C-alpha cells in the first residue's frame, strides 16, 4: 500500500510519497546503540577503567546483539532486498552509501572476534564442566581449543586490546559515516550540515550509554544482584558529559541554519514552529535533554546514592533513549517533511501495520533485546559469577 503524505503549500508532485520511511529512522538508531554500547565496553577493555567492569561484557554482548539487527531495517526498506549484495559486489564508489556493507561486515566480524576472546576462558571452563550436547556446543564455540595456559591467556589479552583499539574508530567511524550520508545530501537543507556526522556520532554514544544504564539496572534487579553504585555513577557522569556536548552541537547546528538564513529558511522556520515544535523543542530538547541534564546535575551535586541514584539515573537514561530516537526521527522524517520547493510542508503518515510500519519498527527495535537475552543465557556476562573472567 502506498502512503500518500498530506501537504500544505506547494510541494513537487513526486514528493507526496515520502521516500525514506520509519525504517530509516530505526536504522541509524540501532547503529548508534551499537557504537554507544561499544564505547562503554571500551571504557574497561581499552582504558582499563575498573568501575565499568560490571557492565563491560554486557556492553559487548549488547553491541553485538544490536549490530546483527542493523541491516534488517535496510533490507525491509529496499525495493529489491535480494539485490542488496550488489552494493558489495559492484560498489559504486562515488556513493556515500556504497561502503556501508563493507564497514558493517568488518565491524560485525570484529565484534564477533572480540566477544569470542572475551568469553573464551568462560566457554572453555563451561565445555570442560559439561557433558553431551552442551559440551559439544561450547567446544564448538571455542573452536575445540581448551588452552588456558598463561601464554594463551596473554595472547588473548593482546588480541583483545588490539580488537578494542581497532573497534573504537570502527564503531565510531561507522556511525559518523551514517551521519555523513545525511549531512552530505545537498538537496535537503535540513540535512546539509558539516556538523551532522559529529552530531550523529555523539548522540550515538549517548544512546548506547543510556541503554547500558537501563540494561544494567534491569538485569541487576532481575538477577537480584546488588547494583554497583560506582559503576552506575560512572556511567551517569559519562552520559552527562556526552549529552551536554551533543545538545550543544545540535543547538549550534540549528543556530547556524537560522543565523545564515539561506533561501528556504522561511519554510524551515514555519516547520519548526509548527509541526516540529512539540517533537523537537518540547520532547527532544526539553524533556529528552534539558530535563536529564538538570536531573543528573542535581544528583551529582548532591552526591545522590542508593535507591534515589538508581531511580534517578534510570529515569534520565530512559529520557535520553527517547531523545535520541526523536533526534533520528526529526532528522530523517523531518528532512523529508520540508519540501525541496522551499514552499511547502508534508506530513509523514506512519502506518500502524505493514512492512514499514509502527509495528515492524517497534519489533525491530526490541528484537535485539531478545537476542541479547539469549546471548546472556549462553554466555553470561555477569562478573559476580565464578566463571567470569
Amino acid at each position, binding site marked *: 500500500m502506498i502512503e500518500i503524505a498530506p501537504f500544505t503549500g506547494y510541494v513537487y508532485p513526486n514528493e507526496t510519497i515520502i521516500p525514506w520511511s520509519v525504517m530509516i529512522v530505526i536504522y541509524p538508531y540501532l547503529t548508534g546503540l551499537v557504537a554507544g554500547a561499544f564505547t562503554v565496553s571500551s571504557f574497561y577493555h581499552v582504558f582499563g577503567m575498573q568501575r565499568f567492569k560490571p557492565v563491560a561484557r554486557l556492553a559487548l554482548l549488547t553491541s553485538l546483539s544490536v549490530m546483527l539487527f542493523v541491516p534488517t531495517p535496510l533490507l525491509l526498506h529496499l525495493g529489491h532486498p535480494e*539485490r542488496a549484495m550488489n552494493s558489495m559486489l559492484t560498489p559504486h564508489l562515488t556513493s556515500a552509501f556504497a561502503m556501508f556493507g563493507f564497514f558493517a561486515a568488518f565491524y560485525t566480524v570484529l565484534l564477533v572476534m572480540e566477544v569470542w576472546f572475551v568469553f573464551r576462558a568462560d566457554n572453555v571452563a563451561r565445555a570442560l564442566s559439561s557433558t553431551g550436547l552442551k559440551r559439544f556446543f561450547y567446544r564448538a564455540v571455542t573452536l575445540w581449543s581448551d588452552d588456558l595456559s598463561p601464554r594463551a591467556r596473554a595472547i588473548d589479552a593482546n588480541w583483545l586490546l588490539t580488537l578494542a583499539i581497532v573497534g573504537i574508530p570502527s564503531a565510531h567511524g561507522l556511525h559518523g559515516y551514517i551521519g555523513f550520508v545525511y549531512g552530505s545530501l545537498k538537496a535537503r537543507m535540513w540535512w546539509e550540515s558539516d556538523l551532522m556526522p559529529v552530531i550523529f556520532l555523539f548522540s550515538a554514544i549517548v544512546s548506547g550509554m543510556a541503554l547500558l544504564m537501563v540494561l544494567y539496572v534491569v538485569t541487576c534487579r532481575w538477577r537480584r544482584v546488588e547494583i554497583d553504585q560506582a559503576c552506575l555513577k560512572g556511567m551517569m557522569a559519562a552520559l552527562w558529559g556526552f549529552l551536554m556536548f551533543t545538545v550543544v552541537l545540535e543547538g549550534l547546528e540549528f543556530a547556524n541554519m537560522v543565523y545564515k538564513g539561506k533561501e528556504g529558511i522561511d519554510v524551515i522556520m514555519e516547520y519548526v514552529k509548527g509541526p516540529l515544535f512539540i517533537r523537537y523543542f518540547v520532547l527532544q530538547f526539553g524533556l529528552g535533554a534539558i530535563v536529564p541534564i538538570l536531573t543528573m546535575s542535581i544528583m551529582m551535586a548532591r552526591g545522590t546514592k542508593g535507591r534515589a541514584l538508581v531511580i534517578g539515573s534510570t529515569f534520565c537514561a530512559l529520557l535520553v533513549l527517547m531523545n535520541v530516537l526523536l533526534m533520528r526521527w526529526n532528522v530523517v522524517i523531518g528532512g523529508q517533511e520540508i519540501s525541496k520547493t522551499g514552499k511547502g510542508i508534508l506530513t509523514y503518515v506512519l502506518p500502524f501495520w505493514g512492512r514499514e510500519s509502527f509495528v515492524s519498527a517497534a519489533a525491530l527495535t526490541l528484537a535485539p533485546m531478545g537476542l541479547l537475552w539469549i546471548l546472556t543465557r549462553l554466555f553470561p556476562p555477569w562478573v559476580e559469577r565464578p566463571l567470569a573472567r
Partner: protein
Amino acid sequence: MKTEDNKTGRRNFLRTSGAALAGLGAVVGGTLLGEAVAGTDKGNNPESSSPVPGYDWKKHRWAYGIDATKCIGCLRCVKACKEENDVARDANHFRTWVERYVYLEGEEKPLVDSQADPQNIAAAGTEADYRFDNRYKDKKVTKSFFIPKMCNHCEHPACVQVCPVGATFKSEDGVVLIDHEYCIGCRYCIQACPYGARLFIEDMGVSDKCTWCYHRITKGLQPACVEVCPTHTRVFGDLNDASSPVSKFIRENRVQVLKPESGNAPMCFYVGLDKDVS
C-alpha cells in the same frame, strides 16, 4: 590441556578452508575480471557499447530547452508522457509536470500549484486526466505563468553520484538513465535530486524518472512531450548539431537553469524563469 592432535587438526582445517576460500575467490575474481575485460572490449567498439543496436551514443549530446513564456498549461505533455512511458496514472508519480505561478494583487509571494493539486484533480474529475482549474477567475491577478518541469539530465547528477550500485548512470550521449534490472530500490537518488524529478515505482520496487524518451530519441524521434507541445514551449535536440532546435534555442536566448547553486549543472535550459521559481 592442549594436545598436538587438536593443534594439527585445527591447522589442517584452516589450511583446507583457506585453500577452499582461495579457490572460490579465484573463480569469482576470474569471472568478474572476465566481465570487466569484456566490458572494456565493448567500450572500444561504439556500435556494441551502445545499448541500442544501430545507434552510436558517442555521436550525440542531447539537451532540452523550455521556453516558459510560451507555455499555456494545457498539460498535453504530462498526458503524453504518462501514456508513452506507462507512468502510474495517479497524482503522485510524474516524469514531467507543469507548475502554475500566480501573483495576486497586493501579495508579494506567488501561489503555486501543479496539475497534481487536489483542486485541479477535482476539476479534471480523475487523477488520470490533467487540467488547471479556474480558481483565480474572481481574483485580481497581477502576474502569472506556467513552468514545465522534468528531470534535468544534469552534467553532474547528484542522483548518479549517490547510487550505491551504479544502477543509475549518465550515458555517453548525456541522458541520465536507470537500469531497472539492477536498481536495489534504496531511494537514495530520490533524496539526492534537488528537483523532485525522481519517483519510485512501488510495484517494481525501483526508482524511475524521465529518460527524454530514450526509446524514441535513439530512433531519431522527439520525446513525447516535445512532440505534443502545441506552442513549441519544449524543444529538444543534439548539441553536437549546430542546427538542432536546442542548439538554436541556447544560441538565440539568454538561458537559465534551475537551482544552479546545487552544482548539478542541468541540461534543461529555460527561458522565462522567475525569481520565485524553485
